[in-house]
């Protein structure tokens, strides 16, 4: 039986690259789609018509996430792996942090809680794309408060989930993809990063699908397989 994975933030960048890798590996992939006008997922769907399902999803909306769960449940009663890749680096307005939180950290909690009922069987693995920007120990930045605060709060949310769910057999991944040429700044792909989305996705796929002898430790790991302190 095919393993199943739900990936948020699948439109482009690392999320899209992971969709392709999981589909190529024979997984049933549910791709959370936020941008209707972005057609990379449509093209991927043509390559994998049987194993790729496109799911409309705004992780900042509880209503949207709940509808996504229902849409997934029409196709399967078990999600083996959940990957929260959706993330934004900035938002407009005086309440920018609040908007960023609703995607990066509260969004992660919203998605995880909503999909847990379909994760009680199977692999029971929850994966979250975080960032070195959430590491307080090594934080070097002098500005960019909102993004860094959102990622630190994401790491804390994952730790709270880990504390409750690990004794129930769930396993966790917390991943820093590195400085990627992605679309965090908008529709224009970045060019000054160190990695391409495919590079970050390749390591993520390996880390997310392999079991560890140290599952009882929650560690932020990166694209080079190095570990980061919180």
């Amino acid at each position, binding site marked *: 039986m095919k393993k199943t994975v739900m990936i948020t933030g699948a439109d482009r960048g690392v999320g899209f690259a992971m969709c392709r890798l999981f589909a190529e590996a024979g997984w049933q992939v549910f791709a959370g789609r936020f941008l209707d006008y972005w057609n990379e997922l449509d093209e991927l769907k043509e390559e994998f018509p049987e194993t790729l399902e496109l799911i409309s999803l705004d992780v900042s909306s*509880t209503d949207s996430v709940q509808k996504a769960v229902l849409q997934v449940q029409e196709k399967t009663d078990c999600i083996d792996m959940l990957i929260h890749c959706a993330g934004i680096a900035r938002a407009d307005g005086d*309440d920018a*942090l*609040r908007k960023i*939180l*609703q995607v990066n*950290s*509260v969004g992660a*909690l*919203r998605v*995880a*809680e909503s999909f*847990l009922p379909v994760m009680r069987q199977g692999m029971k693995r929850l994966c979250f794309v975080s960032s070195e920007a*959430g*590491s*307080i*120990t090594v*934080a*070097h*930045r*002098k*500005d*960019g*408060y*909102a993004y*860094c*605060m*959102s*990622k*630190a*709060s994401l*790491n*804390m*949310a994952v*730790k*709270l*989930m880990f*504390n*409750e*769910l690990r004794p129930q057999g769930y396993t966790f991944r917390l991943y820093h993809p590195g400085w990627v040429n992605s679309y965090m700044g908008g529709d224009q792909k970045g060019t000054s990063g160190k990695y391409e989305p495919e590079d970050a996705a390749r390591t993520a796929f390996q880390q997310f699908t392999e079991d560890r002898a140290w599952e009882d430790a929650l560690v932020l790991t990166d694209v080079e397989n190095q570990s980061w*302190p*919180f």
Partner: protein
Amino acid sequence: MNQVVFISSLQNEDAKETALQFAADGCHVYGAYTDGAALPCDGLETIVQLVLDPMDAGSLNRAVELVSSREGKLDILVLKAGLHAENDGGLGAHDYDAVADVIYRGADGMRRILEAFLPLLRAGETKRIAVLSESCAGIGFCEDTGEYGYHMAMAALNMMEKIAFNALRPEGFTFRNFVTDGPKTGMDAKTYIQRDLSNLPEDDYIHSDENRLVRRDSLFRELAW
């Protein structure tokens, strides 16, 4: 000369206790309720109490003007993520807007207070910014399973302090992060916040504790982030 101290989130017991410690030491202490609590609160007559909405620029300006008109400076600013969401237990179904609001007001609200008071801090002699925290605010340390909003706000506030440290330490500001739920012996929050740390201006953090941001408890033990 008496130090001037401003403490946020006076609705929180640790913040209140710390405010009283500074007042007992002869400091001029201003304490702000950030949850809309009514004034005044019994037993806090030695503290100038005010209600502050950190998300409202007018409210922030009034608080700064109050301290400015009376003191002309601020020596120590103490911040605390002092808000909790209702029904914020373990995994199930959260009120996500409420969780986001607790993080937003509890962490970004403290950033706004810091930025509003920066001119007064620059006018003071001490230039010290402190965060009151808890052991469970350390992500690696935390063993809790609920109170998502409060925990996430504390982590975000710690990150805010680290970025502020990076930005303001070269200007001469010093920073403290004190864990209040340690043993009830050793240093109290006021003592830890007031004391200077080893500081060799010509040296980096290897020989100068002021040139790194750490969190410690009452026994001066360092706790992981």
